[in-house]
């Protein structure tokens, strides 16, 4: 065992010298204090190197061994330090008292180097084990705090569902890629380009901030997975990574809520001379989901026919219109009010696509 640092607390210089010498001869460094108060001052001094064991005399001026031991054991920072009481053979009653107070061991006053070595090493081994235990616990606590911090930081950059997925045990498999039916929703602004050309840049940023500030919380409240937002557009999908059996109805409910909240926002802007309108497209279909991108910048993304359809429907939607695909309509039919809005010829689609326009939701499943 490597040497430790031992604090010798004894009022008799003779005893201190002898002990320090013996400790040095068995490889331990020694510090000295001539009574309990001096020992406590030394232990509490930040400049004092860490002590492994205390050798404590009982009968001392200023502060005796009992009082010192009591204070040591009551101090959370010092209570783990093993204390070996130095005692004469005729003072075993005081040894018993000290051990009851938390002393680790005792040492006869007539010092024997072998006994000294054995007792110090036993106490140090105990303390090292204890230190290791505490260190491990501290490391674990630190690690958990780091994970927590990472998760909360991640959730500022990712949708809450994706942030949770990244730190979940099956996250890697999900990120690697899987197929699932989802309902995706595209939402963007009519005439935003015109607005951003006409308005002051500060005004445009101010509007976007207000717009994101209203739409963002709605997406979170409806538990949509925000795939991306770019300027005036949002892409959100449902049923992944968290399964949502009512994904089609949820997407429509979110769209209706967005349209309502946007109306307040746009009324405000209309007063300032800017006409801004929202258009939303929703479609349901199978998609491949997972990590999309490249080293350094990945998104949790979705690829599929339904997504392209939702994007086209959003482009097709007139001001304030919510257009949904027939598959979304079929899935959400009982929960929404929608009317056929004709068959539309959409870019990239060989045949006209039947489309429904949403009037409202019947039941508000999600607040």
């Amino acid at each position: 065992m490597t040497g430790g640092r031992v604090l010798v607390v004894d009022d008799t210089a003779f005893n201190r010298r002898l002990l320090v010498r013996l400790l040095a001869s068995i490889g331990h460094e020694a510090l000295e204090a001539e009574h309990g108060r001096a020992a406590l001052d030394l232990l509490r001094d930040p400049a004092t190197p860490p002590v492994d064991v205390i050798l404590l005399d009982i009968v001392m001026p200023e502060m005796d061994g009992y009082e010192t031991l009591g204070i040591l054991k009551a101090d959370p920072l010092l209570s783990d330090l093993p204390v070996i009481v130095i005692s004469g053979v005729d003072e075993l009653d005081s040894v018993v008292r000290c051990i009851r107070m938390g002393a680790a061991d005792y040492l006869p006053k007539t010092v024997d180097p072998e006994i000294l070595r054995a007792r110090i090493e036993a106490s140090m081994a105990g303390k090292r084990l204890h230190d290791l235990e505490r260190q491990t616990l501290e490391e674990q606590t630190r690690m958990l705090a780091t994970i927590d911090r990472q998760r909360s930081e991640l959730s500022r950059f990712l949708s809450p569902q994706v942030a949770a997925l990244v730190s979940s045990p099956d996250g890697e498999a999900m990120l690697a890629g899987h197929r699932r039916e989802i309902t995706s929703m595209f939402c963007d602004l009519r005439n935003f380009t015109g607005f951003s050309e006409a308005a002051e840049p500060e005004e445009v940023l101010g509007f976007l901030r207000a717009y994101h500030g209203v739409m963002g919380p709605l997406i979170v409240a409806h538990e949509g997975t925000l795939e991306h937002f770019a300027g005036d557009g949002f892409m959100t999908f449902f049923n992944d990574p968290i399964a949502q059996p009512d994904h089609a109805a949820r997407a429509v409910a979110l769209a209706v809520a967005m349209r309502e909240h946007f109306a307040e926002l746009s009324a405000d802007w209309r007063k300032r001379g800017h006409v801004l309108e929202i258009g939303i497209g929703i479609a349901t279909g199978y998609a491949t989901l997972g990590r999309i991108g490249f080293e350094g910048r990945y998104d949790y993304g979705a690829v599929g026919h339904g997504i392209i359809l939702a994007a086209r429907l959003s482009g097709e939607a007139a001001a304030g219109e919510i257009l949904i695909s027939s598959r979304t309509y079929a899935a959400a039919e009982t929960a929404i009010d929608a009317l056929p809005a004709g068959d539309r010829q959409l870019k990239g689609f060989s045949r006209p696509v039947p489309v429904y326009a949403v009037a409202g939701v019947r039941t508000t499943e999600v607040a």
Partner: protein
Amino acid sequence: MVDTVLDPAGFARLLEITGDDLEFVDELVDTYLADAVVQLEAMREAAASGDPAAMVRPAHSLKSSSENVGATSLADACRSLELDGKAGQVPEAVDRAAACETTFKAVEAALLAERAGR
């Protein structure tokens, strides 16, 4: 007969535990002698003022260091004073404290003789 002023076995033990480092033994002995003067002074004062509690600490301290140098008689006398002090009554305190000083003079002479005789 065993010399109880300075028990040769006790002193030999001191040599042994210090690894026969005579220089260090001399240093220890000097420390012992200097400590002892202070403790004997405190014992004399405790005896003169009739304060048994004040007798305990110096007697205890001188007892343990005397044991370690092999001053058996002095250690025994100090132990008895310490125990009486703890009990709250030290009979013939003044005489016994004075006797300790006399014994100590003999111990001191023996220790210095040992050093001179090497």
